[in-house]
């Protein structure tokens, strides 16, 4: 396995299927650890991890922190809103300062696409992208893939519909890159104003009609309508969006037998998903949260093997 040659995890686009499989396989025993009474193993004793989120997030950051703690790494968080970043410190200087404090791994979220890539080139720390602008959110896609594989037994050849604001969605992009490597048929469904031009070049099919897009699929991944990114008036109102694209229980029936529903959270009930469906038996939202910790544990473990001087920066 060639994971030792990988310094950073920036996206699924340039990851091999084998690497993804290794992460998903490693997450299985990690999930067992989370379920135990003593949720701690000594694997990453003496390793340091820091989370730096230039964009708000509670679940992803907490998930990374707990994943690190369950593996006995020392974790801390740089609270960007109360840090020197507010005094005008540049990204490069901030990262350099953090590096000098000695952590081995940097988990980073930024509103600019490509920011973690820039940082990764300028630090000896290993960098995990926890979401960059509208580019990628690889650990979300990995946990989605883990959740699908756990429920369906395999990823091979599944039909997956990603529904919502594809234009702004880094979750959609990472899922498309990841699922395509497993021979999945990926569809993207949403209003044309929220569909990036030439999205079909990624090997997916676009649908503007919800029912048409989800009919016969095994998995529906509903994206959150990111209200913080809707300034341009790309759809008339939330009410109209809900009217046309909100997932309801009858939609799951339209999809294939035993179809499952995913949502990266936090859910806007009554906008992209109905309350009834949000709590339905085939909705994996809660399971996804647990799986997120397991997948991040797997990733931290795999990335923190080896001495640092052996890794080409």
């Amino acid at each position: 396995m060639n994971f030792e040659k990988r310094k950073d995890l920036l996206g699924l686009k340039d990851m091999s299927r084998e690497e993804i499989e290794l992460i998903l396989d490693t997450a299985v025993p990690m999930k067992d650890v989370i379920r135990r009474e003593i949720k701690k193993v000594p694997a990453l004793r003496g390793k340091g991890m820091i989370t730096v989120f230039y964009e708000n997030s509670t679940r992803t950051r907490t998930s990374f922190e707990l994943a690190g703690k369950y593996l006995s790494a020392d974790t801390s968080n740089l609270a960007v809103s109360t840090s020197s970043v507010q005094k005008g410190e540049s990204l490069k200087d901030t990262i350099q300062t953090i590096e000098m404090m000695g952590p081995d791994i940097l988990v980073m979220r930024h509103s600019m696409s490509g920011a973690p890539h820039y940082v990764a080139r300028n630090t000896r720390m290993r960098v995990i992208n926890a979401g960059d602008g509208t580019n990628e959110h690889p650990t979300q896609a990995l946990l989605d893939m883990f959740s699908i594989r756990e429920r369906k037994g395999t990823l091979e050849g599944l039909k997956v519909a990603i529904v919502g604001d594809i234009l702004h969605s880094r979750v959609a992009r990472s899922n498309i890159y990841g699922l395509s490597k497993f021979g999945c048929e990926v569809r993207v469904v949403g209003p044309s104003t929220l569909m990036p031009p030439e999205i079909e070049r990624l090997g997916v099919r676009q649908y503007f009609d919800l029912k048409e897009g989800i009919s016969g699929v095994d998995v529906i991944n509903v994206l959150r309508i990111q209200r913080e990114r809707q300034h341009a008036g790309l759809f008339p109102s939330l009410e109209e969006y809900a009217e046309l694209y909100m997932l309801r229980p009858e939609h799951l029936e339209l999809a294939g037998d035993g179809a499952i529903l995913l949502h990266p959270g936090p859910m806007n009930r009554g906008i992209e998903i109905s309350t009834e469906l949000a709590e339905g038996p085939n909705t994996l939202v809660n399971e996804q949260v647990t799986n997120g910790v397991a997948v991040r544990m797997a990733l931290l473990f795999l990335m923190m093997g080896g001495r640092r001087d052996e890794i080409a920066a």
Partner: protein
Amino acid sequence: MQLRDKIVIMDEMDMKRALTRISHEIIEANKGVEGVALVGIRRRGCPLAYRLADQIEAIEGTRPPVGLLDITLYRDDLTTLGTQPEVHRTEVYFDITNLTVVLVDDVIYTGRTVRAAMDALMDLGRPRRIQLAVLIDRGHRELPIKPDFVGKNVPTSREEIISVMVEEIDNDNKVVIQELMS
């Protein structure tokens, strides 16, 4: 890296006899198998644990529960290895608290695996006692650990490689000393 068999130190019958004797010793030392469980250390300790359970059942009429332990996350060399070893599942689906747990492994060498296994076990519960059964003791201990039940003591040099082969994994049942082909 190519290996060559130097000596066969146990064939299939020798292995079977050794496991039968260990089974009797486990029963004798614990005055039966009430409250006794077997936990095999991945990988080759696992088939051996099942075989011991079969033998004990044949002798005593009761089958002790068998669990499988993956010790990867407890290894003491994770930070110095170039690549992280693969992690597999620990499958101990019974409560080990207050049980006598017999750890089972194919070979004891430095003792570091057993140290890791004991730590892993303690995180699953509080056993009344831990015992250790191994098919081969090849010496060279680096920790103060001594097995309770041993199939065969084999004095070795550090350069030699001892391979326990089991049908379930290697399609063969034998113990061989191997050396690097030069």
